[in-house]
Every structure is written in C-alpha cells, then in structure tokens.
C-alpha cells in the first residue's frame, strides 16, 4: 500500500478534480476515489447467502475465520487519537490499523530496545564504577577484566533516544491514520489541501532527526560493548606472533606421528561420517517436515508440527555445545565429534531437504495418485525422483559446513585438527599453530570450491 501522502500528491497533479470510476460499497457516496485497496470478490465465486455458505463450509472453520479477517481489514475510518494512544504499547496502534507486518516489526525493535536498556540498568553501579576509574586501574590491561558496568551518561543517552523514538512513533501513527481517513472522506481538492502544513507535517521532518538519533544510539552500543580500535592496534604484534607460522610454515610438523596431516585426516573423516549418517536421518525426517506432504490430514499435520519444533530446537543448539556434552559423556576422541555432527547436520539437511520437497511439481504427485498409487508410491515415484539432485546438493553443502565445524570441535577435546591447535597453543608452539592454520585454510577452501562447483552443475 502506498504512503497516503503519495496518493494525495498524485491526485493534486491531476488536471481534473472530477471523481471518476465506480464506488465500492464500503465508501460513502461522493468520496474521492484515490486508491482501491478493496478485496475484489473472485470472479469464480457465486453469489449466495451466508447460511448456505456456512452449511457448505461446515468443516472449514479456518476458512470462515479468514473470511471474517478479510472483512475487518477493509479500509474504514479509524480514530487517530486511539491509534496514537495504543502506540504506548509499541505496535498495538498498528494492530488497530490492521497493519500486522508493521506491528510485528515495531514490537521486535522495541522489545530489543527494552532488553538492551533493561540490561544496562541492571549493570549500573555508580560506586563500583567510581572505584574502577581510579588511576591504578587506568592500565589498559585491566580492561580485559571489565565487568561491563554502565556509565551514567551512556544510560541517560540511551534512555533519551528511546523516549524520542517512542514519541516519534506515536506522532507518526497519528499522522498516518489522519491521512488515511482523508483519503476515504475527502470530497474536494480543498479537503486534501488541509492535510498539508500544520505541526503534524512539520513533525515528519523529525524522521530525519530520528534516523540520526538511531545512528547515535548505535555508537552508544559500540561504546558499551568496549569496541576499541586503539586496543587492537596496540596488540597487533601479538597477532603477528601467534599466526606468524602461517607465512613461515614448519613443514616437519606435517608428517610427524599425531601431526597435522594425521589430525587433518581425522577431521575429514569426522565430517564425512557425520554427514552420511546425518543424511540417513534427514532423508526420513524431511518427508515428515514437508508441509505439502503432511499438511493434508490432521494427524500428519500434528506430526509435521512436532517434527518442525524438534528440528528448530536442534538447530538452535551450537555444534560446539553438543560436542562438549558428548565429550564429557562418552569421552574424548573423534567419536563425540561425529555424534555432534550427526545431530547438527541432520537438522540442517532436514531443513534443506524438506524445502526442496515443498518446491516439487505437485502435478507429478497427482499423476501417481490418479493411477491408484499408495502414499508410499507417491513418495517413491512422485517425490524422490524430483528431489534427488537437491538432496545431493544439500549433502555437499552440509559437508562443507561440517568440515568447518569439525576443525573447531577438537578445541574441546573431540579429535581432529582442533586437538592439534589446542596442543600447540598450550605448549607455546606458535610456528606449528600457524602451519596447522595454513593447512586448514588450504583444505577447507579447496573443499568449498569443489563442492560449490559440483552443486552448481547438478541443480
């Protein structure tokens, strides 16, 4: 939907102010028709009374609900004052205006702002802050141990920014509803002209100020997260020390027993086994997680939602976390890494696979059904042949990700090159550390390129 101001400008540029076209019944006669956001009835629908509707749509409770919602969404006069006051709960005013997308976005942004502000308030401790600003603690080394206390100025600034955005939101809403009403009700050009000027129009200029304030707020956040370029520059020689081996590799470290190549082979094996076993699970789960296969029947629909929720939970757990859990429960070595990768990559591949199932040509499924095929026939003949290339591509992609993950998992004792890196750091062998990094980079890049090339050829 275009912004109301745009409609008015468009109208004012027209040479005639004579209303033309037909009126839809929700507008009062004589109103200037500027835009038609009216839901047109589908040409195939038959005129019939609502009682017959209800009788025929007996099972379609959702359908009736959707119908009612569509009716409520029709443009009508709304009170700007009510909309503005509702915005005290950010987003509620947009719900009143029947703008669900704007409402959700506003709620999300303001929720984030609440969280940040709230957390900063919790970390506000003036006495502790004063103690830590003594000359002794001015040593930048101590910044590493900064507990993230909020300064008074930063809190006040963040609060002011927040209040300003809040007020701006309410004023914008008032203006928006007012203009939408004008669009419905204006009978002449003069009516529309009334919308120009006045303090509310002036307020629109404050949008630029709001943008500036948001940018300023971001700087406050940068300060709060102790982002410090100076510290990076002063510590640069450390980085050079740790990764110097990258440019001056110790080739001898490659082939020694339990050396870099031994660990790298372990990493690759972990990633391959993890991907393959994960794919076995994903092939089965993807059928259960595909909406077009499962959504046609209440029982399978419930199963679909259960599988979806479980998969979302699984994907939300970081692989490193899974690896730590398995290391402490089944012991160190490549085995816990494989377990972690199976779970993670099964979740990832199920998502990729089920999305490709959802994109299949349903006509081919219908053809199998129309020949009297069973549900299993539909999967074997109607679905699988269509998705095979996407499954292979998804597996390759998952393998790429697993190689990255497997390189890190050794840091928590789960085998692979990460194990070597941890050893090298703990025994101050920085040259070997750099060499290991070099090998990881070369092999991972090679795998990424190959896999991406193959994927581009098969899909």
């Amino acid at each position: 939907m275009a912004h109301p101001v745009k409609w008015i400008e468009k109208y004012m540029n027209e040479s005639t102010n004579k209303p033309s076209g037909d009126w839809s019944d929700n507008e009062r006669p004589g109103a200037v028709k500027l835009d038609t956001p009216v839901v047109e009835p589908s040409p195939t629908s038959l005129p019939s009374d609502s009682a017959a509707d209800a009788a025929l749509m007996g099972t379609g409770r959702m359908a009736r609900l959707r119908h009612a919602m569509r009716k409520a969404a029709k443009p009508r006069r709304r009170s700007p004052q009510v909309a503005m006051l509702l915005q005290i709960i950010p987003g509620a005013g947009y719900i009143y205006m029947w703008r669900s997308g704007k409402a959700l976005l506003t709620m999300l942004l303001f929720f984030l702002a609440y969280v940040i502000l709230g957390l900063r308030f919790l970390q506000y401790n003036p006495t502790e802050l004063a103690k830590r600003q003594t000359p002794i603690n001015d040593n930048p080394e101590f910044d590493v141990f900064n507990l993230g206390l909020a300064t008074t100025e930063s809190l006040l600034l963040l609060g002011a920014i927040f209040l300003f955005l809040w007020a701006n939101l309410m004023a914008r809403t008032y203006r928006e509803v007012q203009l939408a009403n004008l669009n419905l009700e204006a009978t002449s050009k003069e009516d529309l002209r009334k919308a120009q000027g006045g303090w509310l129009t002036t307020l629109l200029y404050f949008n630029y100020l709001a943008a500036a304030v948001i940018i300023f707020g971001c700087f406050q956040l940068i300060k709060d997260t102790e982002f410090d370029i100076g510290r990076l520059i002063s510590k640069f020689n450390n980085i050079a020390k740790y990764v110097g081996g990258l440019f001056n590799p110790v080739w001898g470290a490659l082939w020694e027993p339990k050396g870099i190549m031994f660990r790298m082979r372990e990493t690759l094996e972990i990633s391959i086994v993890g991907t393959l076993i994960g794919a076995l699970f994903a092939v089965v789960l993807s059928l259960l997680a595909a909406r077009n296969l499962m959504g046609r029947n209440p029982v399978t629909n419930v199963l679909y939602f259960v599988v979806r929720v479980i998969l979302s939970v699984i994907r939300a757990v970081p692989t490193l976390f899974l690896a730590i859990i398995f290391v402490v429960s089944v012991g160190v070595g490549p085995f816990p890494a494989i377990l972690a990768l199976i779970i993670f990559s099964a979740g990832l591949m199920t998502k990729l696979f089920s999305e490709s199932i959802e994109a299949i040509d349903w006509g081919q499924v219908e053809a199998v059904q129309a020949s009297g095929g069973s549900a299993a026939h539909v999967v074997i003949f109607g679905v699988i042949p269509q998705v095979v290339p996407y499954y292979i591509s998804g597996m390759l992609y998952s393998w790429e990700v697993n190689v990255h993950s497997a390189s890190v998992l050794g840091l928590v004792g789960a085998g692979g090159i990460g194990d070597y890196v941890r050893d090298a750091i703990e025994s101050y062998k920085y040259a070997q550390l750099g060499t290991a990094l070099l090998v990881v980079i070369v092999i991972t890049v090679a795998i990424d390129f190959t896999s991406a090339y193959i994927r581009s050829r098969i899909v």
Partner: protein
Amino acid sequence: METSNRADSARGNAAELDKVHIRVRNLSKVYPNGTHAMDSVNVDIQRGEFVAIIGSSGAGKSTFIRSINRLVQPSRGEIVINGINTTQARGSELRRLRLDVAMIFQQFNLIKRLTVLRNVLVGRLGYKTGLESLYPIFSKTDVELALNSLDRLGIVEKAYLRADSLSGGQQQRVAIARTLAQQPGILLADEPVASLDPEIALVVLDILKRINREDKITTIVNLHQLDMAKDYADRILGFKGGRLIFDGPPSEVDREIYERVYK
C-alpha cells in the same frame, strides 16, 4: 454407507443402471478460500460416451473432472460409478476407484527425471500391493503391457529416453500410454490439448477418440475450444459459474448456447 448403496442400486432399473456409467447428483464444491467452484451439478454419463465439457476459465470444469477421481473432495452431493457411491471412498477403496478412473493432465505431469517406460509403468502401480510394490521393479507382463501401450501410440522407440527430453505432443502421448497401461473403465482428460500446437492437439484428440471407440472407455474431456468439442464429442456439457447450463449433443450447440456459456 455400503449397504445403503446396495439398496439404492437394487431399487434402480437393472438395464438402465448398466447403461449409466457415472451418475452425479447435487455435486457442489466450496474451496477453503470461499470460492464456490461447483454448484449442484446433476448429470448421468452413459457407458462408452465421449463427453466434452466446455466453459470459460473458472467455470468449474476442472473441479468437476477432478471430483470424479477425487483429486478434489466434493463438499456436497454424490458420485455413483458402476452403481457404487464413491464420494466417501478412502484408503484402498479410493485406490481401487482411481485404478478404474485414469486421468491425463494439461501439463502432462510425467515424472521428468525417469524414462518414458517407467512413466508408463506408473500406470501399473495401482495393481501392485504389499511390500514388493515399494520396490521399483516391475514384472515382465507389466513391462510388456507398457511397451504395447507405447506401441499403440507410435512412440515405442522413445521408451528408454528421459521423459523431459520429449516434445510436448510426445509427452502427452506418453501420458495417454500411462493411462492405457492402467486399463481403466473411465478416462478423464483435464485440458489435454491446452498447451499443445493446434495440429498436435488434433492428433491427441484423434488418439483419445480412437481409444474411446476401440476400448469402449468412457471419456470425459475438458476443452477450451468449442469447435474441437463439436468435432469430437458425442455429447457436450456447458459449465458457467459452477453450474451446468447446457447438456446435449454437439448439433444443438448454436450461437445462443455459445453466448450463454462464454459470455
């Protein structure tokens, strides 16, 4: 349900029942989005008839055809095929119904990544039962039948090509071969020629007509073009706005009927 059907058929005249292949009563469909696609359609289709359905887009032609093999579940009314009410068939009952009611589609709906022969064998799936049916290997007789079907349509030499390497007309012939392999009593065709060139469209309709005559398969075809319907059909049904507004032989279709159906 089952018993009431039997009682129904017992009451009817046996001779008349034998002639009526598909009996449709009060058939209505309301889609979940509130669209009334079909409203109280009543029609009897005789055994071996070649019926063409005409009407503009959204008139309910597709909904009607798809209700017969239940790719669309009607909201109200009933369909009786061979004296058996199929409107509520589920599971294996529904599979048996679909085995007898073959269908070809506007977009051919071949499984593009499989060979032509395998596509034709999909028509045999309904006959396979049990665990062995999940294994995509077909018996010698099935393969023989599939090759014969392809031979009848003159494309047997394409049997081992991938389905998507064929032209549109050839793909539609493969789809027809698939329905032949199914050995159905009824053949439904949902806009079978809408995505084909005019000459190839005539070839496909010739084939459908020949199958209808030779195999005595009751054939129901959705067509956009009135002239084709008049040339090929024994009987024409005119749909408008979900209602059946014309039912008669092609000779009765005149200017006035045309106006009523399409305007």
